């Protein structure tokens, strides 16, 4: 294998391969994508692990995320600084979890984070309403939305507190055959 690249050290690439579901080539490709979003800010040399973060506005303009109604939520779920900006680590992490090799449990954890709009670790009725509005681009009537929210909570809530905790969400996801193939972004 050619060792001509000088973006990462070999040790860094090995670390990335061990901690994510990507291979060397894919990680270098991801770096290329990260770089081309802001060539003035992102350095080409990552051997010293520079502390560079790209703001959310740049990331949600990526073609893979641009039309996704949940793009802000996706980016903020993987952001470590709470404002939605992603470092390269976070960027790789995001696409690694959304890749097709990530296991169901890991995807369920992050899906829960994404659908939890007010980050209170529950999917309450308000979160569900926001989710539905984003899914259907507000085509459903108020009454229909309320009905759907009620039915969803009725179906999935197991301990009767009127909200979906992570255990409820995960239990529901485990019954969904499509989850792995729909919660997947190809990069």
């Amino acid at each position: 294998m050619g060792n001509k690249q000088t973006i990462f050290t070999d040790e860094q690439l090995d670390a990335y391969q061990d901690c994510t579901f990507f291979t060397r080539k894919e990680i270098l490709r991801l770096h290329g994508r990260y770089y081309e979003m802001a060539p003035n800010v992102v350095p080409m040399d990552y051997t010293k692990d520079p502390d560079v973060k790209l703001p959310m506005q740049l990331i949600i303009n990526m073609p893979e995320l641009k039309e996704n109604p949940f793009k802000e939520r996706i980016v903020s779920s993987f952001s470590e600084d709470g404002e939605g900006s992603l470092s390269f680590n976070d960027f790789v992490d995001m696409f690694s979890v959304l890749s097709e090799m990530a296991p169901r449990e890991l995807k369920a954890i992050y899906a829960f984070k994404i659908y939890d709009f007010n980050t209170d670790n529950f999917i309450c009725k308000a979160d569900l309403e926001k989710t539905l509005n984003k899914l259907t681009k507000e085509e459903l009537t108020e009454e229909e939305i309320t009905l759907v929210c009620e039915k969803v909570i009725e179906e999935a809530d197991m301990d009767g507190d009127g909200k979906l905790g992570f255990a409820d969400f995960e239990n529901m996801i485990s019954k969904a055959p499509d989850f792995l193939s729909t919660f997947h972004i190809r990069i």
Partner: protein
Amino acid sequence: QPPSITLHVPEGSESDGQEPSPDNERALHTSFHQLILEQSSLIEAGLELEMQERARESPAYLAVPEACATAWPEPRQGEEHPRHSSASLQILASMPSRTIGRSLGAVISQYCNRTARLRRQSSRPPLQQLCRAARPRALSLLWARDRQAVSRRRRLLVKELLSLSPSQCSHMLLTMPLSLAEKRILRRQLSGQRGPVRQRAHGWAPVSPCAWSRVCVGLGCRGLWYRLLSLLRAAQPGHYALKQIGGRFGSSVLSYFLFLKTLLMLNFFSFFILLAFVVVLQAVYPSASVSSQPFSGLELLTGAGHFTHSLLYYGYYSNATLNDPCTSTPEGSVCPLPAPLLPYNLPLAYLFSVGASFLVTCILLVYSVSRSFRESVKSSTGDLAIKVFCAWDFKVIQRRSVKLQCENICTQLKELLAERRSRSRSQSRLGQGLVLLLAWLLALGWVSGCVLAVHYLLEHMHVVSAASQGSGRWQQEAIQMVLPLVVSLLNALVPHLFNLLAMWEKQDSPVTQVSVAIFRNLILKVVILSLLCYHWLSRSVICSTEECWETCVGQELYRFMVMDFIFTLLDTLFGELIWRLILEKRLKTKQRPEFDIARNVLELIYGQTLTWLGVLFAPLLPAVQMLKLLLLFYIKKTSLLRNCQSPSKPWQASRMSTVFITLLCFPSFLGAAAFLSYTIWSVQPSETCGPFRGLETIYKSGKRWVLVLEKSNPNITWFAWVYQHLLENTCLLFFTSVALIAVIYFNIQVVRGHQRVICLLQEQIANEGEDKLFLMQKLRSVYEQRGRRC
């Protein structure tokens, strides 16, 4: 005397008055700071006790006895009652089950526990990979913000991970929901700790040579594995193409192309086995063949002519040991030359290669079926919730397709709501039933009509070709092509008639509609293929005049495959390109033709069945199929991107993939395997050509070899004995079937038991929820009483 503690609740800790977030743990801890200080001393005492009791088990001292942790909501604190019930809300928000995945310390300790449990259980592997949402212990919350505590927990986790096997360790590292920066720190600590192990082993005499060499080998293998993985992924064709297709059309259309890739892989393995063990060797030792005709372009279409006596067909292969110099001497005379060191018996190689390629295909298919079955078990409840959370396909990135997807989901949700609201069915059940019955009768009638047509055509063609023996070559070739043409025409046109029928029928749910369409197409193809197989094997009408009938059958199959490819191309051309032009220019609508997934997949399965039927008679047929599939991939992709729109019917992509691969396995592969077995066991090969000439059946060659082996080397009579008594005995088959049925029954009972346990656990969870509410109310009432008393 219990310490008096003031319970001071911070007001307005949340900006918009929503429930307090466990992210805001700092506020929580400063409010309960006093309480925590008092309690931590108690907990330390509890820890000491724990450690003494469970001295054998390593860092399980995290397990605080539950009694201790729940001891402090006792009504001995609180002179001041809380001003709002937000205090109870804060308590609820900080409970262990609510903070999973939130704070760094909580996640680390959760995975520490999980790793410890995994290590303890490592002697017996877990029966199922259910995700245990392990509750992080109460202690971890107290230490969550303390940086020192986090690094201490990290060290613990690293220690736990080191005690696992390398594969388990790397799996743990990959599946932990920590940020990548955190994982890299962990990994660095892991490799740092592993490093000294290696150095120590260098300096000393082998302390644990097994462990050290295992680590080294493990690391080396992992590096190799990564290289292989990236090579494989780079070699896969059309990664960008798949992304384009998924982005515009979603997972359902993508499943067709993924299925095509699966078929490519299956054919590659079959082809490779046959190439390595049969074709290449026969090419290296060419047999003394009949003078063949010169090459003209028509061979590519008909497979006859120049190709008849070539590596493509069965007839070319010799029936003797390849590198034996005595093969050219006549029978009966003594051969002066010595026997070769490594005799290569081609008939055996031929038989075993075909068997091996089928076995490999079988294993790969069963593996694919089981893997996709696991993913697609349908549940009856929870439809709406699943639709809300899992219906959005994140792969779709084009604006128009996204809009379409929104509309789809909206429609589906409305339909589900309507279904729930009104359970009452509409009128005339009887009328509906009558229409269905009529439609099915019509469909079956058409199928029988097609079958009869093919049957009479066969007879007619036989007569015509017998009559035209003397006429020109072009005419003969044309006559040979009529049967494949007609069959392909029927296969192409009748599905459209079935579609018309379905429109008349007006089924309720689209899923049923699609399933019915697939089933009818399947019946048509299966029946026609069975008829053709019967005629090929009985040789009453087809290939009755040929001496080398296997080559003839091989040629027929080749022609069928080529015709199938041509008709697929024509169908793409007319069904997609020209239809789009008509819609655009003539009818002036914005609509474009849809990509009919079911029909296309069935065509792929049909082509693959032809390949499997023909492998015995034409060993290079998998290569032809591979070429065909590659061309199809790019042609279909281009046509799709230019001419089609996304499907408007809702498709559960994963369930459909399961259906496709099951259809590939059961009617298609099993039928081909049955055909092959019958040919090998009961049909007499031709006298003058091929590797099995002169034998009673192809199977007898294996038997003959075993007898020869027995005679030449008396030491391995056990092998012959095994062969005779185990493989040829029907008792063995009987016992294996009984064992298989027993295993299936056992599994069914286990699954039933699991379902019962699940019901019980769900009840338990509901009860726990009610308990919690009860306790909170009791607590509030106690506080209120205290407040009133004071």
